[in-house]
């Protein structure tokens, strides 16, 4: 067994992966010698569908790029649109956007902590951190009306205000989450089985991070002080008191430490926002037709740098919308991280970048050069092929009666 090479697929359907993606690992014993990352199962064509919709309709599509960082994408898209339109939104609207962004970061990091715990078989951590994540989600639901797609943003500002009751509840939540985060930080830094499983796994050094273009907690864990909130401040982040967390571990342990410590920084920002919430209008009027222009905006999502490009052509519809989700930047170093590690660590390494498959997936075009062995089928040919395939096995699908749809009330 030790010298024989085994090829093991992780995915497209696998208990460790929450979304489809295929990682083909070649094993020598328990060690991974070669890893091939295959993504692209989840392409939804959101960028294209934005081109035939008005800006306000696009906003709802963009918000659904990602389930966890919905606010990140919509804020980033709106910043691009507002830049082109030359609109300056009010300070209060900016502060509320920051508040939502940091609440989102809190719940995303707590979610990741639980997922990582589950992957290394530490389900108690999963249950605890997800229990505390509920507190954050409750607050998000109170403010925005929904647990994940808050719909707080609109062109020119925000749709919902924060009142005194919200501020009080949020402060209570901050106290509890901070208390719990201290406990998790203590567990993460001292628990022996956790340290044994996370330490030295999925190494991506400082130089490799820059070479492969890793972003977010993945690169910060390797000591790259790359946080858009500091390097290219937006939404008045330059006023917020917080530090960029970096470690020198450059492994999954470092990524855990970065995420846990960032919870404290987010709590700090939320407290500052609540104490210094300026007065002002929520929404600034923006014309339906955005003048021609192009804008690229950057944003620090919980998973790393998120880049949006919008090109306007003077009509109600954008000419081009481009989304580069943070996971896409992190995929490039993935094979490098997995190779040389144990099979047992592969799901953990994959999870450590907090991958978001559907945000990232692109359309894949099959470059069909070898026409002898490959062929491209259109829809009808494919249908005929499947009918013949079943016929050869004695099943005539054309005779199958589809029962009438029954409605159960």
């Amino acid at each position, binding site marked *: 067994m030790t010298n024989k090479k085994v090829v093991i697929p992780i995915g497209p359907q*696998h208990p460790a992966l929450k979304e489809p993606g295929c990682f083909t690992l070649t094993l020598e014993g328990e060690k991974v010698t070669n890893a091939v990352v295959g993504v692209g199962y989840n392409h939804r064509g959101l960028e294209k569908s934005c081109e035939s919709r008005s800006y306000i309709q696009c906003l709802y599509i963009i918000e659904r790029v990602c389930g966890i960082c919905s606010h990140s994408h919509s804020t980033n898209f709106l910043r691009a649109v507002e830049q082109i339109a030359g609109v300056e939104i009010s300070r209060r609207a900016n502060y509320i956007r920051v508040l939502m962004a940091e609440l989102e970061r809190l719940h995303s990091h707590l979610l990741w902590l639980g997922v990582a715990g589950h992957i290394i078989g530490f389900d108690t951590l999963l249950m605890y951190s997800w229990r505390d994540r509920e507190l954050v989600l409750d607050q998000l639901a109170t403010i925005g009306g929904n647990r994940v797609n808050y719909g707080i943003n609109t062109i020119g500002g925000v749709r919902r205000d924060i009142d005194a009751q919200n501020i009080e509840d949020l402060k209570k939540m901050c106290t509890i989450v901070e208390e719990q985060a201290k406990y998790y930080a203590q567990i993460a830094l001292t628990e022996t089985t956790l340290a*044994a499983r996370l330490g030295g796994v999925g190494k991506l050094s400082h130089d490799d991070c820059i070479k492969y273009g890793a972003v977010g907690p993945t690169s910060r864990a390797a000591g790259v002080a790359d946080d858009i909130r500091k390097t290219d401040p937006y939404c008045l982040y330059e006023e917020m008191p917080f530090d960029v967390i970096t470690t020198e571990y450059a492994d999954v342990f470092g990524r855990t430490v970065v995420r846990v410590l960032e919870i404290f920084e987010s709590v700090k920002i939320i407290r500052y926002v609540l104490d210094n919430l300026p007065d002002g209008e929520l929404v600034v009027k923006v014309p339906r037709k955005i003048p021609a222009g192009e804008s690229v905006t950057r944003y620090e999502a919980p998973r790393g740098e998120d880049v949006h490009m919008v090109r306007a052509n003077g009509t109600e519809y954008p000419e081009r919308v481009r989304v580069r989700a943070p996971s896409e930047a992190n995929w490039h170093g993935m094979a490098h991280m997995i190779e040389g590690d144990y099979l*047992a660590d592969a799901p953990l390494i994959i999870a450590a970048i907090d991958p978001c498959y559907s945000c990232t997936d692109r359309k894949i075009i099959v470059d069909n050069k070898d026409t002898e062995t490959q062929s491209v089928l259109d829809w009808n040919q494919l249908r005929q092929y499947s009918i013949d395939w079943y016929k050869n096995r004695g099943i005539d699908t054309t005779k199958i009666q589809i029962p009438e749809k029954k409605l159960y009330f």
Partner: protein
Amino acid sequence: MPLAIFGLLVFPGFLFLSVYSLWFEYLDRKMYARMQNRQGPPWFQPLADFLKLIGKETIIPDDADKPVFKILPVFALAAATAAFLYVPIWGQTGLYSFEGDIVVVLYLLTIPTLAFFLAGWFSTSVYATIGSVRSLTQLFSYEIPIFMALLSPAILSGSWSIAGNAAFYHTHPLYILINIPAFIVAVIAIQGKLERVPFDAPEAETEIVAGAFTEYSGRLLAIFRMTIDAELIVVASIMAAIFFPAFVANPVLGFIIYLVKTFIILFILTVIRSVMARIRIEQMVVFCWKYLVPLALIQILLNLLLKGVLPL
């Protein structure tokens, strides 16, 4: 003869073992859930799971060796059930007892693990193959410490039967304190045998789906699940008999004491399961050979020395 059949099939044989193992699984899951701040399952959940699996279709892979694939779950359950007959339930003696039964029980407890290995191997799926290889690797790591830990009390008592050990430590209760290192080794090593966290690498669901059981479904999987529960009972019972030597003459009271003792063992196992993460297979091997085996060896040496010194 009817009494012997009653003993084999009803109490303390197959039926009691089945009921008690389902109850144990419930206690395990409920305590685990409460420790994680969850509600946990209702009391009938293990039985409901079992019945549901029984009713499900059994799918056998085309490439699998069908007779072996089908016989292995039954084989594993039979071995665990046979081991249970030699374990004391209501007093110092099990249903059957002879000089050397402690070794037989340990031997019978190895068979389910071998059955898991073969089950994974013959189902020819990559996940199952890797899981079964891990099972076997793990077997070579925990089996030695577990044998040494459970046999070192026997060295001191001079008896190779569970009943003999129980009687010896019952008359000399303080001597059990000598065996505390062996108890620690045994508690840790049986986590490997039962494939529980932190030593559940052979069936780590986030890495290799369900390990050796990946291709199993329906009735066969139900029997395997039951085997694991039964193994837990047998292991807890044998540890209770050897390391907790509190016995009374009254069989009913003795039975209640047995329930309490096994519950304590289960509680320790559940706490370990809820506060630890899964460690990698190579870390497990290193841990067993570096720490558990030397500790068990020290215990054996200590017991050999004390046997010459103590007035027995």
